[in-house]
């Protein structure tokens, strides 16, 4: 007895279907962020976009690196780098849960044939000073999605809040294809020859080599140096932004200075620090007494950037046009019960 369908989606079809689903519902399709992150949440498309009043809807795949989770490609369920499909809906529509369930239909899961549960799971990221409440979505006993209503990010209360849907792509693909090892997932199938390319073919070397590097060969001293350089540069930027904010009157020229200030670059540096910290941690190079302190240093950068970012969005003429699109809003099938009248 096989899973839902006799012809299950390949890994890349799964991604394409989910992207198409959310694109049709008004999401901007972003591409994976090109700096190492530990989770889709850390990409600026989430961390920075959730701040401030601007509505935004975005979906993107984010390869997420967690050096300590590496297993040299030997464990069938664990990866150093896994893929998340991240959806941010800001503000969350009233029927956000129903939309999510519909997206499962789009990847071939007939919910009538399965057991779905929303089980409490609250999320917290101390390095980002971010947290939210929500659920892990369980499909036949498998956690397939993290569903979170963000409440705070970078230490700032969010208004409006957003819903974050994080699909665990490898898990879902393994479920759909009914395979026991992630490495056996069919990534792509050549439509002419029918030949399958497996997840292992694409990524196994990646897993092995990065496990060796992160656990055995990463130079602790140089990684520390890397951390410190990025931290210093990030702080320098934050200090000069603070100088702008503290200075003079609110002239046009001053506003322009502020709005072109590279806070996005500062955030990249913060992400670099976070990744260096993860490598040092995997390497066992961070002592008990240091650990809390280092996390606090990364958090200080993230919180500083979030504050500055909100300030920058308020001051500068906002060149990023991110208006909600009423036309696409209408396309969303209104859930029959979403407005209950008396």
């Amino acid at each position, binding site marked *: 007895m096989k899973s839902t369908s006799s012809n299950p989606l390949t890994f890349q079809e799964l991604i394409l279907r989910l992207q198409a689903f959310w694109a049709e519902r008004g999401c901007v399709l972003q591409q994976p962020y090109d700096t190492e992150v530990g989770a889709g949440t850390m990409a600026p498309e989430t961390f920075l976009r959730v701040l401030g009043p601007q509505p935004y809807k975005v979906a993107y795949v984010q390869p997420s690196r967690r050096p300590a989770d590496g297993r040299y490609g030997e464990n069938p369920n664990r990866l150093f780098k896994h893929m998340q499909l991240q959806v941010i809906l800001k503000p969350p529509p009233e029927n956000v849960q129903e939309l999510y369930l519909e997206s499962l239909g789009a990847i071939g899961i007939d919910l009538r044939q399965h057991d779905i549960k*929303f089980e409490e799971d609250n999320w917290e990221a101390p390095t980002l000073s971010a947290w939210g409440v929500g659920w892990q979505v369980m499909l036949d006993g498998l956690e397939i999605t993290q569903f979170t209503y963000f409440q705070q990010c970078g230490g700032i209360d969010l208004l409006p809040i957003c819903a974050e849907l994080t699909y665990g792509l490898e898990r879902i693909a393994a479920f759909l294809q009914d395979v026991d090892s992630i490495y056996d997932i069919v990534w792509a199938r050549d439509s002419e020859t029918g030949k399958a390319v497996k997840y292992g073919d694409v990524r196994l070397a990646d897993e092995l080599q990065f496990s060796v590097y992160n656990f055995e060969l990463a130079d602790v001293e140089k990684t520390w140096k890397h951390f410190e350089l990025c931290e210093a540069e990030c702080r320098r930027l934050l200090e000069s932004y603070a100088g702008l904010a503290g200075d003079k009157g609110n002239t046009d020229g001053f506003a322009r200075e502020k709005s072109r200030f590279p806070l996005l670059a500062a955030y990249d540096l913060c992400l670099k620090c976070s990744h260096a910290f993860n490598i040092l941690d995997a390497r066992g190079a961070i002592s008990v007494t240091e650990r809390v302190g280092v996390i606090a240093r990364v958090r200080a950068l993230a919180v500083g950037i979030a504050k500055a970012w909100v300030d920058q969005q308020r001051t500068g003429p906002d060149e990023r046009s991110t208006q909600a699109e009423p036309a696409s809003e209408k396309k969303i099938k209104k859930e029959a019960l979403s407005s209950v009248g008396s």
Partner: protein
Amino acid sequence: MPDFLLEIGCEEIPARMIDAASQELRERVGALLVRERLGGDAITTFETPRRLSILASGIASTQEDVSEQVTGPSAHVAYKDGQPTQAAHAFAKKAGVDVSQLERVSTPKGEYLVAKVTRKGRSAAEILADSLPKEIATIYWPKNMYWRKPNERFVRPVRWLVAMLDGQTIPLEFDGIPAGSQSRGHRILTDVAVNISRAGSAYVDALRSAKVLGRAEREQQIRKALDAATRTIPGAQWREDRSLLETVVNLTEFPSAILGAFDSQFLALPEEVLVTVMRDHQKYFAIQDANGKLLPHFLAVLNTDSDPQGLIRHGNERVLRARFNDARFFWETDQKKSLLERLESLKHVTFQKDLGSYYEKTQRVQRLCSWLNEQLKQRGIIVRPGVVHKAACLAKTDLTTELVKEFTELQGIVGGLYARVQQLDTTLPEATRLAIADAIYDHYKPESTDDSVPRSLEGAVLSIGDKADTIAGMFALGLVPSGSKDPFALRRQANGIVKVIAEKKLPLHLRELMQDARTGYHKSQAEKKFVDDRKYLESIETFFRERLDFYLRDVCGYAYDVVKAVLGADSDDVVDALARAEAVKRVLHMPEFQAIGAACKRMRNILRQAEEKGNAPAVSAEPLPDSAQEEKNLFTYLQQSGANVEDYRKRKEYLPALQLLATAREPVDKFFDKVMVMVEDQRVRANRLALLRMLLKEFSTIADFSEIVTEGKS
């Protein structure tokens, strides 16, 4: 008398919070109905993950009118020459009546005008629409959120509301959502709106047809489904698990169950690991054979009606297989490094940010355990010091294993299991090695008041040492639990210490134990942040007294006043307090002790009042030539029986000691009947006060009898 219905429709409420919130909502609505004089007979609740509902019958459609008498100005101001003045007119206008309807009443202060005013009762719908939103908003949630405006908080977004009196909608609104008569059914099994025709049983019926069941019905349906699925395996039974059952009841709206299987080769893994994976991670029930041995099957509770194609079973089996494979992988990986080799890595595991690493904790606990061994040895209890020492050394090393990192709830247990299979030390005899393993395995026990204590004395010592070290460090840092704040579960750990001491009958003194535990931090980094010793000991004593109080009352079931009396005498020695509580409980029914309790209260009051007036008792009491006969008798009694009571007491034979004390009733009663204590003569008075003080002290060594509740005691 209409029926009332309120349904708060919500996104999935965390299972652990549903029951308490539902109960609170019921109490709130009940109190509201009473406060607003709206009657209401039976109030029942209906709760699922997606709704909290209240049903009540016999609601008054409107409040009864209330007539009140309002007092106005005095008559001589209100009337001049028999005519109403401006004051009378103003009062009549304010009260809403005609001047001619005003009446006069006589009061001690003279004659006053009154008006009889009728306040119209408001309609139930109006009151409920006004008040219910406030009640809903104030429900307590351990963690809540906002989704629209920051000041609108609930556990998860509220998506619909139903509020009705019979068939009529109550026009209320909560967080922007107007109440109506439309509910929603099961998420997957139905996809239509559920129209509620009227409040009352029609609501429950409508939901049942929409595949939504009430709590009790769900539990029943789950039990039946579990039984039915288990019956397919001859002789098998599912393992009853109350908290798991409550969880799955509150994770489902329309439950069913499936029986799944796993490869029997996984049974080679320890049962503890398999059960933890199934119960804590997958919320599955384990199945055992008639001898209690685990079978390679599991039961999963679903939130849907069936699994006709077996897809759900297949999926769950797949997940469990992966989990078990992981566990096996971790188990095998962990064996590459022995517990002994892991000791060093504890330097990298934080115990608490100010208290340093687990390596440092290990050293402290070893020291504290040696002290405990010594204390017990001096009091005639022999603990194998080598076993305790080695077990304490290895107890925390499993924190560095993959298995514990994955299944944190197995800490201690995994250490014990590994110690059992590993060669700890080639020179150790097998029995010693197993004793060490058992002590490690048990050292987190008891994890709750229902949990058992460590099996061996060595395990008990380690359990006490480990917990005392944690409590000492936290209290020294000033991190004392308060109210619902107890992030390090210090109360549970202290309850554990009390329970282990009590059940193992260990002659230990809490004060000494906690003083020595504090000594373990001597000259550590953390000490700079510590509160001073006096403050430390004070907070520790209060804390442990509360824990002992809890143990005697809630665990052993002793009455409130017995416990208060017993702990009033002393709360340092757990075993002794238990023995005293038992003795006091047995003699309490004797009329003598009812009288002695009253006498003790009287003595205490007299002594207190004397002290307040500056009347000091004599240094010691002695029979004076001019003493009353009753006074001399009491003195003689004290001298004769006092020594005997003391002998019993020293041998901890509290029952005979108390029985002997009971004979004091007669001389005491007679003394109070005939003798006046607070006489003019300073010498006589001081002597009598001294006598009372001696007597009170005599009575109070076993229990403070002035705490005994005398009235209405059977």
